[in-house]
């Protein structure tokens, strides 16, 4: 069994975010759940990473910790060059606002605001003007055209997720995190969203990390990190859908075997 103590970014260059010996324990005593177990993983600037693993393996927990939505039980998370350990709620909130972009599986938009208002919301909250050039770039990349002034309820699921991605990008964050952003979409809409994210990596050198179950989605990325039982168990560079599918099969078989053996 190949266990990697630390996985390194594939692309050379600076690190956009990393987890160092990160553990997350829910509950305490008998019922304690170790959702993440001493995970150390780094994400390079301008890299598109997919996190995969069986349900309950700690993918969402890892994303939440990286996004400063949740705090580590042990270890550290570093976004850009800021360590999250010991930061106040206020500082964490500001960090989410300015340095992190997050896309959920669903319900990413404020229903009372138009698409355009949703996109600029993080900046508006911070009381900052958007960098006009970057804003224009993001807006045109979303490709929503005249639908920008519509309310979310008037947009399709794919359009809504693209607006959510644009919102995550607008403040030029260190990392964009997306937890199963295509989980609720059909394959065509998934393609739109993943294509959009790919472009932001290629054209704007944005660091993007997504969680997905879909080997096809994983194939859009530069690197796949596999989680199981709260640990990084494997990784794959320049993945293809077929290779990922194969790897998932192997890993889950090992999982089943491990469970059988252990049980």
């Amino acid at each position, binding site marked *: 069994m190949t266990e990697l103590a630390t996985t390194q970014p594939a692309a050379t260059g600076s690190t956009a975010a990393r987890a160092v010996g990160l553990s997350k324990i829910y509950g305490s005593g008998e019922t304690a759940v170790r959702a993440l177990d001493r995970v150390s993983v780094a994400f390079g600037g301008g890299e598109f990473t997919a996190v995969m693993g069986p349900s309950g393996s700690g993918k969402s927990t890892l994303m939440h910790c990286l996004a400063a939505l949740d705090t580590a039980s042990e270890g550290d998370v570093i976004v850009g060059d800021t360590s999250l350990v010991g930061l106040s709620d*206020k500082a964490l909130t500001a960090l989410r606002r300015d340095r992190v972009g*997050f896309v959920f599986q669903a319900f990413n938009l404020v229903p*009372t*605001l138009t698409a355009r208002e949703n996109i600029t919301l*993080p900046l508006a*909250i911070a009381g900052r003007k958007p960098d006009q050039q970057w804003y224009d770039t993001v807006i045109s990349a979303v490709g929503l055209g005249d639908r920008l002034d519509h309310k979310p309820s008037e947009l399709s699921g794919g359009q809504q997720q693209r607006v959510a991605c644009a919102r995550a990008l607008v403040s030029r964050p260190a990392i964009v995190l997306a937890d199963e952003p295509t989980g609720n979409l059909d394959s065509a809409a998934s393609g739109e969203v993943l294509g959009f994210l790919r472009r932001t990596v290629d054209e704007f050198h944005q660091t993007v990390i997504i969680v997905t179950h879909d080997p096809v989605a994983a194939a859009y990325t530069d690197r796949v990190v596999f989680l199981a039982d709260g640990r990084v168990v494997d990784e794959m560079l320049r993945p293809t859908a077929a290779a990922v599918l194969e790897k998932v099969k192997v890993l889950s078989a090992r999982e089943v075997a491990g469970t059988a053996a252990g049980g």
Partner: protein
Amino acid sequence: MTLRNLLARKLRLTLSGFAIVLGVAFVAGSFIFTDALGGAFTGIIKGTTADAEVLPEGGGEFTGAGEDSRTIPASVEADLAGIPEVAVANGYNQVQGVYVIGADGELVGGDGPPGLAFNYTETEAITGDQIVTLLEGDLPSDESQVALDVGTADEAGYEIGDEVELVTPGPEPTMTATLSGLIQFGAEGGLVGASLTIFDDRAIQDLFFRGRDVYTGISLNAADGVSQQQLADAAQQVLPAGVEARTGDALAEENEDAIGEILGFINTFLLVFAAVAIVVGAFLIVNTFSILVAQRSRELALLRALGASRRQVNRAVLSEALVVALIGSTLGLGAGYLLAIGLRALFATFGLDLGAASLLVEQRTVLVSYAVGLVVTVVAAYLPARRASRVAPVTAMRDDVALPEASLRRRLVVGVLLSVAGVVLMVAGFAGSGRTGLVLIGGGMLAILLGVSLVSPVVGRPVVMLLGIGYRRAFSAVGTLATENALRNPRRTAATASALMIGLTLVALMSILGQSAKATTDAAIDETLTAQLVISNVIGTPFSTTIAEQVRDVEGVDSVAQFRQAFPEIDGSQSFVGAADPEQLARALDIPVAGGLTALTDGAVLATSAAADGQGLTVGDRVAMDFPVGEQEFTLAGTFPPSGAIPADYLITTDALEQAGIKAADSLIYITLAADADRSAVRAEIDVSIDDLPTVTLKDPAEFAQEQKEQIDQFLAIVYLLLALAVVIAVLGIVNTLALSVIERTREVGLLRAIGMQRRQLRRMVRLESVAIALLGALLGIVMGIAFGVVLQRAIAEQGLDVLAIPWIQLGVFVVVSGLVGVLAAILPARRAARMDVLTAIATE
């Protein structure tokens, strides 16, 4: 099922339950308090009435036309004592208007409660207790001594042996006497704030009855086995003409009825506010259940999909309301008891001191409270319940469930129709006269209020949008979000604001009427009062006529007009009758009477145009007044406009009043100075002569007006205090709506926090939404209040409110306060929103 639902929504229902609690508390409190008040007065009446009472014919009524000046020769007492049916006959003299000045120089009890004096007897009242008993010290033995009731002596700070200062209605306006002893009234001493002074038998005759050996009444206790009726009948045989014997029960009952009328008025007054509280509370209940039903629509749809009939769903919601109503009414009853204690304290500050009199919860109070609580809640929950039952089963399968909402257009139509009907009613009220007119106007106002509440989702939108422009400027994204939140559910926002609107409409209306009344007072006194000084008591407590005589002797005083008051019934209702010497009055006042004040002769009466209108009187008509000596007839000689300078609806001559058997006592003195008089010197000299009389004050016209305006302010203060409860309910409504909205928007709140909104910003967002709702309610309310105020002032202009004054600054203050109230209402919901854990909020389905 219902109970489980309730427990699950405990928190959300608490606030709407609270509305019921407050509404019911108001109803219960009104009844409990007026019952206690009635009980206290009944205690006094029964505690002062013997088995039979011998009185001048028609006399002895508790709230009579005025103090009876007639007496009974003392020899009658001996005649009565000789009858076998009579065990004891005790002649007594009772005098009103004897006040105790405390050791601190202040009037005991302040303005308001009566000051009674009589001589000590051992008469036993129908309660079985002696009317008064000596507790400590001795009974007064001559003019130099008095005894006081324990409570009064206590409050005045006197102990036995102290020199007591008294204000009297007799020839000597003040006197001092040594406190010889302390007495107790009845068994418990409850005097409702009144003071009791006991004089020696002879002394009271010398001081107040010019030394004549007379009694104002004779109390009889029956011999063993003799009934009240037998006693009265036997006594009647030996009485001279003009004197009658009446049974204690009959007399007590008559007096209780008279008191009951006044108590009925107080009860109605309080119940009006209870009604306002309940209407406002109903809004809150409707709103809460609407929101709850909306939030549960999925669950209800599931029930429907599983085969529950519409009726079952309907019943599920209604039975939930029923449980809330039961709990709310029960708590409301308890809160009503506390409110009654509060009212008791409030009224005590006005001299109506119930002491520690027990507050009883009558069965009727319980029944009415539950009836009101149940009916209002169930009716208010019915509409949301009906809507819930219309949820199509298929919606259970959908992601976001929208309840079928009656189209805004239908609401708009109904609302506009209601408002139009209200306007029609008000117009009709204008045309109608007197009471019916005012009832129509009141009904019209209610219809318009409800109509406007219905259309408020439409009317409110532009107001909120306008506010939103300001919000956006000042608070950028947070302001935008708050505005959008206030706009996203117009019905909810409007219903919440409507509750506050009703409260503020009434507050604004009252402030306009109050301001107009004050302006009218100023104008009237300015126009009609030509006298330069006035001696009076703010509530018209009568004082010795000697004061007028003393003032007449002051150098520089040209003329003095004495003004007296009586309250005889005219056409069955108590009226304010003033009496003065026409010639004196003409020098003090410039009243525009057709035919001049000289038209007022002994057989004539002048009436204010309002009173004449109300009674349908025209010049030449006969006016019958019910005085102690019997009905007196007067001819209407003319009318005059109502004026704050003459506190009366009818005016007769002083001589006519004395002939009617009312004791001579002034309630107002107008002083006109000689042209060359040194005003301040004269004033100083008069001041000296009334210096030891804390019951009256000397003032110039401006101060006289000020005193009356303070009365108006005091009344307004009570009204505001009572309306404040409606506003409190409205605020709870805002809290409730916001709390429910925050729960409903849990995921959105989580999202906002996830993308970097600070807790502080989130709180501000909720606060701004709250302020928007509050300001919407305030603005609508104040606009309506102004409209109603103008209309009402016009309607009653002839009844003496002929100046319209709008207190703009005060209205502005109301708006600002409403905004602050919005801030206050947002505290808890905002904190709740800010405390939400981001991840749980996001994960919430």
